[in-house]
């Protein structure tokens, strides 16, 4: 007797361990590939898996085998025109033989391409930023909850007593408990009326009936108006709330002094902020404002890849931002975040104007404002002025960044704030 075993339910994901080992083994190559990917990805496009390609020769495992050369006899099928003794020019590298020989030119070997899941991708992304584990888990699961009503319970605290509900219940109970007595009472009443036509008040049978009526009325009277099990309490449970909407301002200096590398750092920072916001908000608008001496709202492509020349007037961007907030994102409905990246250069008279703008027109509406200065050099005058903002406003963070791994400290501040 043979048996058919249904194995579909067990042993799923048996290769998960092997897959992890594979990813660990080729960490370096995968990270390199991911770096390229990030450069190509849009800021809003971070939260999904990715195709990764690593060079085939890195993943191959060596074994002893013959190389080209020497004497070889082979049989192939499908002869059409050859006769014994014919000669054929030798095909260029590798094409002859049974097809399994790798070409010796070393070029043109296919890359090994595979798909990373979203989790795996983020893991590699975070790894690069040197985020500690705590933040990683926070990033992947931030849910706010709200107490919502969820019907009624029979247990609770006095302050939650629902009066109407409790009394309705009590009334129902009273009616229900009274009804057998009432029915009997009616019956006896009818009987009494009937008997009174033929008997005197003093007859024993009438007295008995009167006693019975009195007894029943007593019983009815003794049914309590409200009892402890009538009490109903409002029930409230925690429900995760999709925090509604946020807008994220990305402000970047695109003047000549910001090179490709600086912009790349800025991009990582914006990405991280966006990623954080997607954990908390359902709907996120992103506004890209680039500025040199004048500011303009641009699309992402232009934002990261256009290059301008000339000086820098930061206040132009802040002005534009303030007016956009006024027009489109009145702060009652929107949670506003801003990230500003710059190399710190500013026209020196302008920094004072910036401070004013921030203090009056921007910071009061902000959930959080972060400023990163991407420069290996000394702080510039914008930094000095911004330091004053930082002392005035809790929700302002600033940090100097020299390399990608510096991005994290700014973020830690962001998360500390959310802890309280």
């Amino acid at each position: 007797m043979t048996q058919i075993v249904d194995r579909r339910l067990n042993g799923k994901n048996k290769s998960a361990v092997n897959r992890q080992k594979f990813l660990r083994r080729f960490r370096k190559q995968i990270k390199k590939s991911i770096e390229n990917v990030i450069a190509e990805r849009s800021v809003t496009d971070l939260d999904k898996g990715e195709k990764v390609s690593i060079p085939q020769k890195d993943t191959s495992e060596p074994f002893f085998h013959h190389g080209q050369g020497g004497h070889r006899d082979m049989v192939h099928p499908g002869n059409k025109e050859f006769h014994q003794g014919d000669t054929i020019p030798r095909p260029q590298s590798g094409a002859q033989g049974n097809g399994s020989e790798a070409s010796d030119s070393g070029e043109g070997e296919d890359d090994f391409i595979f798909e990373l899941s979203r989790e795996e991708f983020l893991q590699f992304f975070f790894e690069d930023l040197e985020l500690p584990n705590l933040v990683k888990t926070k990033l992947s699961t931030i849910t706010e909850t709200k107490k919502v009503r969820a019907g009624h319970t029979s247990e609770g605290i006095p302050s939650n007593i629902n009066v109407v509900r409790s009394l309705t219940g009590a009334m129902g109970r009273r009616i229900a408990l009274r009804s057998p007595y009432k029915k009997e009472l009616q019956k006896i009443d009818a009987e009494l009326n009937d008997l009174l036509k033929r008997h005197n008040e003093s007859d024993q049978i009438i007295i008995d009936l009167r006693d019975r009526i009195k007894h029943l009325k007593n019983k009815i009277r003794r049914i309590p108006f409200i009892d402890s099990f009538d009490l109903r309490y409002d029930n409230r449970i925690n429900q995760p709330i999709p925090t509604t909407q946020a807008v994220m301002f990305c402000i970047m200096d695109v003047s000549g002094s910001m090179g490709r590398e600086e912009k790349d750092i800025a991009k990582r920072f914006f990405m991280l902020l966006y990623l954080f916001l997607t954990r908390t908000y359902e709907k996120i608008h992103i506004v890209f404002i680039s500025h040199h001496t004048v500011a303009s709202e641009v699309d992402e492509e232009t934002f990261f890849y256009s290059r301008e020349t000339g000086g820098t007037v930061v206040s132009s961007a802040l002005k534009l931002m303030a007016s956009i907030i006024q027009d489109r994102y009145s702060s009652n409905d929107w949670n506003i975040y801003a990230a500003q990246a710059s190399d710190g250069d500013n026209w020196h008279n302008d920094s004072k104007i910036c401070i004013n703008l921030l203090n009056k027109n921007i910071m009061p509406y902000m959930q959080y404002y972060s400023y990163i200065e991407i420069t290996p050099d000394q702080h510039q005058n914008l930094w000095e002025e911004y330091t004053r903002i930082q002392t005035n406003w809790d929700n302002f963070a600033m940090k100097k960044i020299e390399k990608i791994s510096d991005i994290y400290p700014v973020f830690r501040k962001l998360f500390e704030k959310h802890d309280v």
Partner: protein
Amino acid sequence: MQNSIKNNMPISQTSEWTFDLIEKYHVEIERIASNFGLSTYPVQLEIISAEQMMDAYSSVGMPVGYSHWTFGKEFVNTEKNYKRGQMGLAYEIVINSDPCIAYLMEENSLPMQALVIAHAAYGHNSFFKNNYLFTTWTSADSIIDYLLFAKNYIAKCESRYGEEAVENILDSCHALKNFGVDRYKRPPKLSLQEEKNRQQERSDYLQSQVNELWRTIPDKEQNNENSTPARYPSEPQENILYFIEKHAPLLEPWQREIVRIVRKISQYFYPQRQTQVMNEGWATFWHYTILNQLYDEGLCTDGFMMEFLQSHTNVVAQPGFDSPHYSGINPYALGFNMMTDIRRICEKPTNEDREWLPDIAGSDWNETMHFAMRNFKDESFIGQYLSPKLMRDFKLFAITDDDRNRKIEVSAIHDNSGYQNVRSTLSEQYNLGSNEPNIQVYNVDAKGDRSLTLRHTQYLRRPLDKSAYEVIKHVARLWGFDVKLESIDEKEKIIKTFECSPPKY
């Protein structure tokens, strides 16, 4: 067959499978198979999902296996191909074990399930049970136990010595796994319990043996002779992994055990590598024969047969050498056609067949095929049974590619003067012994720097691939001292040397 009844009702009209229908088909297939005299291990059919099938594919078809990144790589690769639809997972995975486990994938239609049952659970199964290589070299009753032992042992090592250390050893062993087989000596049977019991003893004993080889206190006799020192080992050893397991001076006992595990598993697969054409040919022949018998008995519908034939035709297709789809000779095609051809030669021999294959022409086909299945491997099977008719059908031609000539020469084609040559060339093509470089352990410099010398004896002047250097690195890691690989030509002259020192930790 005598109990074939016409006017049977087909077992099913649908192509959706159910457990009940699979069972019904299986009963019929089993009956037909045993009527044809197929002797098999008991069958265990297992329904698995596509993902599990990919799991199985990526761990070389074994139901349990130790974990290593290379299997992860295979899985990623298989998954990618499957998602792109480049690869149907329709075909079988069957395990050479007792009972014989055959996997049925849930996505398959009912005709495909029946095909897989006939192909894997009866075709391959009977081959595993009866072919001389399998009966001599593998132990179907204990392989699952052994794999389980290996998996647990390696997991234990990982937790005790760290994943990286274990991975390093495994990487190195994998690089040598084709050189971890005994070609002439039957290995002892595997069994979980004995393996566990012996493992401790063995590790203690081995360590003492290694010490023997590296004894530093000089013997008296050796001092007074100045003749050339005897080589160690005195005879070259072909099983490099075995030699390392027994003699590598610096390996820890657990590392030796891992070397042994890789070696044992490689040994288990060795017969499969030698019988691909026969094994697939045999299984394909029988699924074809059995399902046709089902149809003749009226047990399956025309639609069933159409679906089966379409799949069957794809499997046995052989593109020509100039086709973009050509990737060598398709073992299913060659094997199936040779098996069918043997039946033809037995039943309706032509004069040509009587001349070329006098022994089998006109004999009982089933008996002849069983004889062939039991007693041959690919190399000898082709040498013995490839008929001129089949060479014409396949339009086979042999070429000679010699790097001393500027051009490739067509040495023989499918004509009277060429049959013999084509047949022997094709047979040689399946000889693992000449396809793999001949590399043996040649010497250990026991009195000097303890370096290990391997010798590659060139065959037909074929050089080693450059990647040999990478492999030598792995050998050096296992050996722990310098390793040298010499290529020698027919005149025993050393023409190329690869050298490597072990990594410093």
